[in-house]
C-alpha cells in the first residue's frame, strides 16, 4: 500500500489538486494522471533526458523528481511551451532534426532553456548544454543545426 499526499501543482498554466502516491515520479504523474504524454519516459535514472521538462523556470529530469516534490510549483511540459518553442519546432522540421521523435520533447525543453538563457550559436556550447539528452537516431548534427538557426534568426 503506497503512502499518498495531496499536491497542488500548476501545469501549463492550469492549477490541479491531486492525491499522488509519494513514490510516483513527476513524469508518470503528468502522463498517467494528467494525460500529458508529451514528456517521455526513457531510462528512469536520469541518463537519457527524454523526460526533461520545466519546473519553476528550470529544466529538470522528470524521472528524478517525485510528483510530491512538485507541490506548489509551476510545471511546463512540451504541451505548454506554445510560442516559446515555435521557432524551434519550425527549425527542427526544416532541418530534419526530429527523426523517431522520442527525444524531441526533451531536446526542445533543453534547447528552449539554452536559447532563453542567451546562449550563442556556438556548436560546442550547444552540444554541452544538450549533452544530457540522448538521440538514439543520432540526429545530433541536425539538432544543433536547428538550434543554431533559431539563434541566428534564420528560421524566424
Amino acid at each position, binding site marked *: *500500500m*503506497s*503512502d499518498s*499526499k495531496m499536491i497542488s501543482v500548476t501545469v501549463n498554466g492550469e492549477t490541479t489538486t491531486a492525491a499522488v502516491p*509519494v*513514490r510516483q*515520479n513527476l513524469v508518470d504523474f503528468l502522463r498517467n494522471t494528467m494525460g500529458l504524454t508529451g514528456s517521455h519516459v526513457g531510462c*528512469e*535514472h*536520469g*541518463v537519457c*533526458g527524454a523526460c*526533461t521538462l520545466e519546473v519553476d523556470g*528550470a*529544466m*529538470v*529530469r522528470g*524521472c*528524478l*523528481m*517525485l510528483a*510530491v*516534490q512538485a507541490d506548489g510549483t509551476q510545471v511546463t511540459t512540451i504541451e505548454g511551451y506554445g510560442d516559446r518553442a515555435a521557432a524551434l519546432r519550425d527549425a527542427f522540421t526544416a532541418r530534419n532534426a526530429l527523426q523517431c521523435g522520442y527525444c524531441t520533447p526533451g531536446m526542445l525543453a*533543453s534547447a528552449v*532553456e539554452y536559447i532563453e538563457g542567451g546562449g550563442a550559436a556556438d556548436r560546442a556550447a550547444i*552540444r*554541452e*548544454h544538450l*549533452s*544530457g*539528452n540522448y538521440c538514439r537516431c543520432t540526429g545530433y548534427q541536425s539538432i544543433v543545426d536547428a538550434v543554431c538557426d533559431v539563434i541566428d534568426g534564420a528560421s524566424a
Partner: protein
Amino acid sequence: MKAADFLYERPASLGDALALLADADRDAAPLAGGQSLMPMMNFRLAAPGMLVDLSGLDALRGITLEDGALRIGAMTRYVELTGSDLVSDHAPLIAQALPHIAHAAVRNRGTIGGSVALADPAAEMPALLLALDAVITVQSEEGSKDHAANDFFLGMYETALEPGELVTAITIPPRGDRRFAFYELARRHGDYAMAGVALSCATDRTDHRVAYFSIADRALRATAVEAVLDAGGAVDDAIAALEGLPFSGDLNASDATKKHLSGIVLKRALGGL
C-alpha cells in the same frame, strides 16, 4: 524501474528534519536534490523507509564569505554555484569543474551536500573538496561537528557520517596564492568520468594536493604523487608514483585502464596549472 515504496516528509525546520533522521525505526534518508539518490532508488540499490525532503530548509542554502573562507550551505544547488562570483573568485577549482559535473538539467537540482553525503566514488565533488582541504560540517540532534574532507570519505558510498547526522555546510579555506587544475575523461560530456583528478598547489609549485575520483572505491589523495611533485620531480616520475593506489575497475574500465587513464589526466591537469 520504479523506486520501492517509502514514506515521505518535508519538514519545515532543521530540528524536525534531525528528529526524523534520528529515529532509527523509520530508516529515514535525507533527500536533497535527489539526482543521485533517486536513480539509486529506481535501481533498487537503495530502499530507505522514509525520505526526509530537505527542500523546505532555506537555512541550508546559500554561499557566503566568512573571514576569507567560502561557506556553502549543503542544499545549495550546482546551478547556484555556477552563477556565483564568490565561487569563481574564491574556489576557482570548483568553477572549473562545474561544467563537467553531470548535465545542465541535473545541475539545476543537484546539491553540493547531497553529493558529499552520498560519496559516490565517481562524483567530482568529494575529490574537489580533498584538493581544496575543505571542512564538512555535520549536524545531529546532539549538536554539530566538523570533519576535514581528508577524514570524511571512507569507502564506496561510505563516509564518517553517523546515523542521524546530516551534512549542513561545506567550508573552503582562503585560497591564498594557490593554483588549481582539473581534468576528467568521460565517454560523454557530463557523464561520470572514467578517471578524473583535481589539483591544487602553491604558486611556487610546492605543497601539491592531488585528489582522484572514479578510479577506486572512493575519492582519494595520491600522496606519493604529491611527494614527487613537491620535490620538483618530472611528470613521468609522478605518474610512476601512482603505482600504490587501490585502483578498482567498473563497468566502463578495468583497474589497469583506470591506472593508465590516471596518468593521462594527471599529465593533462599538470599542463593546465
